[in-house]
């Protein structure tokens, strides 16, 4: 291996690592706030990428109908509850968000010449379809069992993952898709060719991470999520409802997932089930951070990305094996170094 190949592999590793970092942050966030180990995180990557591909292909993405279906279900449940409690003033909001928004979006997608719109508009539309599924998913699946033990939440999480992969196959078919790059520019840095898309991925990840940091440090809603993660009861007494925190968290997680999908779709071919593997690598990174530390998870993600790209050079058949084996020494090290601290009053 010469310097040029090493640089190329490093570039690959960093690009993938940036995506894994985003997913790892989302996993840590979801676990901290809701105690759900969010296996379907990867599905949002695939849904985001493939919805964009369908929009570019000029067809109505089937995910829009899924969104409408989920919205209708939530409207039914929340609407009935509001009626039973005589809170009729809530009804307009419930119907507007859960039925009005998806139908409006479908109408927009039918009317607009989506295929010929600029790429930015297509990306925004794809996100508008996929991201609201996050809070709807929380409302339908996880909110009713919010106080269940972590294991139950994990089992349900696996079930959601399987269901979403199955629906993915139904919606998008078995063929993989690749979307056009955001930019065709190429930069020569010394002996290295850096593609425009790589720059896009790195910059977008960096901006997103900084934006998340600002969100959690500066805004009241971000602080409310952190507060829920630190002390659920205390947050509840401040009027921060666990349901609101859960929906907000799943919104952020879905946004991160779908955006990651849109970003990597021009680099790798995305199949309906590609998301799982990408999500799992984000999960390895999150484990390196102990499912608690954001900076450690991000460092872990870059490590995973680099390990993956270099092992694909030396032992390409084993690259996933090597990455996932990384989790064993990490867990050993963690279980040996962390002492179990009793909850102090």
């Amino acid at each position, binding site marked *: 291996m010469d310097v040029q190949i090493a640089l190329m592999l490093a570039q690959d590793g960093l690009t993938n690592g940036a995506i894994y970092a985003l997913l790892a942050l989302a996993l840590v966030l979801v676990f901290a706030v809701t105690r759900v180990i969010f296996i379907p995180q990867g599905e949002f990557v695939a849904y985001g990428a493939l919805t964009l591909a369908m929009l570019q292909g000029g067809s109505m993405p089937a995910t829009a109908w899924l969104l409408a279906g989920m919205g209708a279900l939530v409207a039914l449940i929340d609407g009935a509850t509001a009626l039973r409690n005589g809170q009729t003033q809530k009804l307009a909001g419930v119907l507007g968000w859960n039925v009005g928004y998806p139908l409006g979006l479908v109408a927009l997608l039918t009317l607009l010449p989506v295929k010929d719109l600029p790429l930015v508009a297509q990306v925004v539309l794809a996100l508008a379809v996929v991201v609201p599924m996050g809070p709807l998913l929380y409302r339908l699946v996880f909110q009713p069992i919010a106080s269940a033990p972590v294991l139950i939440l994990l089992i349900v999480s696996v079930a959601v993952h399987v269901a979403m992969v199955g629906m993915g196959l139904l919606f998008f078919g078995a063929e993989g898709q690749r979307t056009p790059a955001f930019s065709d520019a190429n930069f020569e840095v010394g002996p290295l060719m850096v593609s425009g898309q790589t720059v896009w991925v790195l910059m977008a990840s960096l901006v997103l991470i900084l934006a998340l940091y600002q969100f959690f440090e500066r805004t*009241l809603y971000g*602080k*409310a999520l*952190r*507060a829920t993660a*630190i*002390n659920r*009861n*205390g*947050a*509840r*007494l*401040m*009027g*921060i*409802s666990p349901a609101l925190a859960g929906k907000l968290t799943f919104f952020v997680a879905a946004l991160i997932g779908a955006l990651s999908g849109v970003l990597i779709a021009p680099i790798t071919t995305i199949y309906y089930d590609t998301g799982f593997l990408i999500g799992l690598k984000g999960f390895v990174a999150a484990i390196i951070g102990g499912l608690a530390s954001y900076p450690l998870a991000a460092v872990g993600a870059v490590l995973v990305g680099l390990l993956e790209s270099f092992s694909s050079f030396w032992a390409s058949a084993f690259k996933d094996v090597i990455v996932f084996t990384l989790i064993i020494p990490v867990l050993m090290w963690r279980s040996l170094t962390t002492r179990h601290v009793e909850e102090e*009053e």
Partner: protein
Amino acid sequence: MNEVKNPVLQIDKLCVSYGKVEALSNASITVGEGQIVTVIGPNGAGKTTMLSAIMGVLGSAGRVSFDGTIEAVPEVERMVARGMNLVPEKRELFGEMSIEDNLVLGAFQRYRMGHRDQARTMDEVFELFPRLKERRTQLAGTLSGGERQMLAVGRALMAKPRLLMLDEPSLGLAPLIVREIFRIVAELRRRGVSILLVEQNARAALQVADYAYVLETGQIAMQGPAHTLADDPRVIEAYLGLGGKHQAMLST
């Protein structure tokens, strides 16, 4: 009966049970506008259970009427939005966040409803607790017991409550700090906050309160104006003791 003109809180025949065990049965209490009402009683009498049920943290049967509106089953977020606030026995602070952030989150529900006066409310809280202002950037988890209690009360005040419920505010605190806490309770009433105070430190609680209830094994055993109850031989025997005058000093 606690006869008041403007009741802020009226609970009627409130019952709570943990499985088959009834922890609170048919408790009825009233808190008037600007009043300090205290509920005293031994460990395990159901005092904390009662506050949790009023707040909606625990499910209950019976009627809770707050500010003129009846809640069949109170719901925490709604109660906070309507101006009820509970400072729990465990404080439940956000340990890894700064004092300032803890306070700001106290005003979360007000912020959601469109109020943007957090900065001014925080100044008022700092006026009441200058100690918190000095340490505003310090993490809540690093505070001493007394400071934690001050922060918990300050955080609740950020919501500008109509009714503040304090669960054992003096628990585990040094006598001088307890005195400080009771002085603040009295000061809050001067500012127009109605207070429901649950205490084991009966002497200090009776000193500061207007009206008092004695809760024993889940039932209201006695009630009356606080100063009358403080002279009641049964209360003296069970809760105050004869020689312990130094305890009353805590609330002066």
